[in-house]
C-alpha cells in the first residue's frame, strides 16, 4: 500500500517534468492563435531547437544556459519567419506548418549524422542539474518558470490593454485596424513568441529532460501541445492544468514501463498519453469553446 502511494507520488512529481514542453509550447501557441496565427509547426520547431541546443552544448561548449538561449533564438527565428510568411505574404498557415514539421525531421537527422556520424542520436551527456530533487525526480527551473509564465500570460491577455489589442486581432482584424491596432505587427510578434516558447520547449527536451538528442525525440509533443491549446479553450491557466494532465499520462506510461519491465507491453503502454490526448480533445469538442474567429486566415486589407 505504501509502495502504491509512493509510486503515485512519483508519477505526480514526474508529471511536473513531462508537462514542461507540452505546456510551454501550448502557452506560446495560445498567444499566437489569440492574435489569429496558427502554427502547427510547433513539433518541428521543438525538434530543431532540441537539436540546436544539444549540438551547441556538446560541440560549442556554450553551457546549459547558452544552449537554452540558442534553442530559444532558433525558435524565435522560425516563429518570426512563419509570422512574416503568414501575415505579409498571406501564405497558407497550415501548409507552412506541415512543411516546417517535415523539414525539421530531415534536417535534424542529417545534422546528427554530420556532427556525430550516426543517424539516430547524439552522445549522451548529463542533463542540466535540477533545482531540487523530489521523489528521485529533479525539478528543472523551467517547471516553476512554466507555471509562472502561464499565470503571467493569463494576466497579460485578460488584464492588459496590449493583451486586449492582441485578442482583437484574432477576432476581427478589420475592426481592430479601424480602432488603431497595428494588426500585422501584433500578429508577427505573437507568432514569434509562439516560436520562442516552442524553442525553449525543444531545448528543455534535449539538454534538461533527457541529456541527449535523439531522432524524432519530440514524439508528437508539439501536436499534444496543439491539443492542449484546444483543451484549454485558449486560456493559459487551463493550459497549465491541461499540460499537467497530458504530462501526467506521459509520466504514468514511463512509470508503468519501468515497473513492469515488459518489452511486449511497452508499446501499448506508450500509447496512453496519445489516447488520453484523443479522449481529452474529443471531450472538448463537445464543450463549446470560444475559438478566435479570424484564426488561421490571413488578414488582407482593402
Amino acid at each position, binding site marked *: 500500500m505504501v509502495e502504491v502511494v509512493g509510486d503515485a507520488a512519483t508519477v505526480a512529481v514526474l508529471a511536473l517534468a513531462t508537462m514542461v514542453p507540452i505546456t510551454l509550447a501550448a502557452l506560446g501557441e495560445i498567444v499566437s492563435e489569440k492574435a489569429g496565427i496558427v502554427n502547427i509547426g510547433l513539433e518541428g520547431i521543438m525538434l530543431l531547437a532540441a537539436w540546436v541546443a544539444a549540438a551547441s552544448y556538446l560541440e560549442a561548449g556554450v553551457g546549459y544556459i547558452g544552449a537554452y538561449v540558442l534553442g530559444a533564438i532558433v525558435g524565435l527565428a522560425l516563429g518570426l519567419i512563419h509570422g512574416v510568411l503568414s501575415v505579409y505574404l498571406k501564405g497558407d498557415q497550415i501548409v507552412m506548418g506541415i512543411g516546417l514539421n517535415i523539414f525539421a525531421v530531415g534536417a535534424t537527422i542529417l545534422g546528427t549524422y554530420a556532427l556525430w556520424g550516426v543517424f539516430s542520436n547524439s552522445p549522451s551527456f548529463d542533463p542540466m542539474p535540477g533545482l531540487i530533487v523530489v521523489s528521485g525526480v529533479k525539478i528543472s527551473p523551467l517547471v516553476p518558470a512554466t507555471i509562472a509564465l502561464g499565470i503571467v500570460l493569463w494576466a497579460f491577455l485578460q488584464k492588459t*490593454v496590449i493583451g*486586449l*489589442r492582441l*485578442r*482583437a486581432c484574432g*477576432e*476581427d482584424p*478589420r*475592426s*481592430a485596424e*479601424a*480602432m*488603431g*491596432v497595428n494588426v500585422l505587427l501584433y500578429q508577427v510578434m505573437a507568432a514569434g513568441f509562439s516560436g520562442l516558447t516552442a524553442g525553449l520547449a525543444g531545448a528543455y527536451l534535449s539538454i534538461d529532460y533527457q541529456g541527449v538528442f535523439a531522432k524524432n525525440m519530440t514524439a508528437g509533443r508539439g501536436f499534444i501541445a496543439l491539443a492542449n491549446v484546444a483543451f484549454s479553450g485558449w486560456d493559459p491557466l487551463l493550459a497549465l492544468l491541461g499540460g499537467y494532465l497530458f504530462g501526467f499520462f506521459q509520466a504514468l506510461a514511463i512509470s508503468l514501463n519501468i515497473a513492469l519491465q515488459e518489452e511486449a507491453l511497452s508499446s501499448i503502454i506508450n500509447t496512453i498519453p496519445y489516447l488520453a490526448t484523443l479522449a481529452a480533445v474529443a471531450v472538448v469538442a463537445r464543450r463549446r469553446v*470560444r475559438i*478566435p*474567429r479570424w484564426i488561421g486566415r490571413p488578414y488582407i486589407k482593402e
Partner: protein
Amino acid sequence: MSKGSRKLVEMRGIVKVYPDGVKALDKVDFDLAEGEVHALLGENGAGKTTLMRILYGEIRPTSGMIIVRGKEARWRGPWDAIKAGIAMVYQNFRLVDALTVRENLLIYLSSLGVSRSEAESRIMSVAEDLGLSIPMEARVEDLPMGVRQRVEIVKALSGGARVLILDEPTSNLTPLEAEGLFRLIEKLKKRGVGIVYITHKLREVMSIADRVTVLRKGRVVGRSVRGDRFFSEEKLASLMVGEVLAPQRSLGEPGKDEVLRVESLTVESGEGVIRVRDVSFKVVAGEIVGVAGVAGNGQEELVEAIIGVRKPSKGSVYVNGVRVRSARDFYRAGGGFIPGDRVRALAHELSVADNAAFIYYTGSRAILMTPSRVKQLFHRLVREFGLKAMSPSTPVGRLSGGNQQKVLVGSEFLRGFRVLVAVNPTQGLDVATTAFVRDLIVKASREGVGVLLVSTDLDEVLELSHRILVMSGGRVVGELRRGEASPERVGVLMGGS
C-alpha cells in the same frame, strides 16, 4: 447652415480617379458646420461613401483640398482624421463582436493615447451627457444593432470627435431603433457636433437633415437647405435619380388556382418559444400577398417553415398541392425563394458564375453542371438584369450591394418558379434597382406566379400587394385588401392591437 455657426470642415474640388480610370468623384465641394446635419444623398455608386472616406483619410483624393477649422489638412490615414476630430460610423460597425463593449472602447481610446482610467471617465461622461445607457460588460455580438450603433457613436465622441460621418445609419436598424437614432442626432446637434448623414432614403433626409447635397455619378447635382423650394421628396428624388419614377403601379388580376396554402402553422424557436402561432392563409396564381410587420414578429420563422428549412410544431404547408416537408420538396414543387440577407445567401469569395450556378441548380436533379449553361447564365444576368460585373469569375464580394442583389434575384428568376417567397427583396438597393426588382415581381405575378412578399418596408408591401397580412407577435393580426390598406391602418395593426 444655421447662421453664425463655424465651419468644421470644408472639401474643395475633390476629384478621385481610380487606377482603372473610373472617375468616382468630379470636382465635388462639400462643407459642414457645427451643430448641423448635412445629408449626402445619392444612389448606390454615386460616390457618397467615397467622398466621406476621403474626408476620413481612408482614400487619398486625386486632387482637391480638405480644410479643417480653417487649416488645410493632409491625411496619411484615418488616424490623422480621427485625431483631428473626424469619426466615421460604418454601415457594418467596426467593433470586435467577441469582445465586450468596454474592451472595444478601451482599444480605441488607448490608440489615441488615453489612459485606462481617463477612458472610463470619458465614456461615462459622454454616455451620461447624452442620456444613453451603455451595457459596458456585454459582448458586442449579444447586442441589438441599435445598441451597437450607440456604442460606435459613444466611441467616436469619447475619442473627441466633432464631426460624425454616419454611413447609411438606418440600414441595419428596426424602425423603433431608427427613431432612437434620430433623437440622439438631435442631442448631438445641440452639443455642436456636425453630422454628415450618408443615405439614399429620402424620407430620412426630410425628417432630420438641415442641408442636403445630392450626388449623382460622382458629381454634385443639387444642393438644398431645409425650407427652400428644392427641399421636397419629389424634387430630391428627381435630382438623385435623374428621371421621374412612376409613382403608382398597376397590378395584374389574380387567377383562381391555389398555389400556396399554409394551414394552422405553429413554429417554435430552438429554445421552444412559439414564434409563429396558428397562421393560415393561401395565395392564388397571379396574386401578390404581402406580409407586413416589425422585424422579429415571426416573419423569419414563418418563411423558414414555408420553404421547408424549419420544421413546424403544428400545421402544414402546400406548394402546388404538394406537402412541403423539406427544402427539396419546396423547390421541386415549383417554389422560388429570395432570401432577405444577401450577405449570408451569397458565398462572397466565390465567383459570380459559381453563385449564380448554385442558385440556378437549387432543387435540380442534374448531377453535372453544364458549363455552357453556366456561362449563358452569366450573360443573361448581364443582359436581362443589368448586372455590372467584370467577368463571370469576379468574386461576388467585390460587387456592389445592388449588383449582388441582381445576382441573387436574377439567378432565381432564371431558374423559374410558380410560387415565389421573397423576403425584403429590395433591402439596401438604390432607387433604380429597387424599381427594377419590383417590376420583376409584378411581371412574374402577371405571368401567373403566386408571390408571398415578406417585407419590413411598408411602402413596398403597400405598393406591390393585392392583399396584406399584418403580423404581430407571431400571429396574423389583420388582413387588408389593396385599396383599403393605408400606411396608417397597417401601422396600427403592426403595433399589435
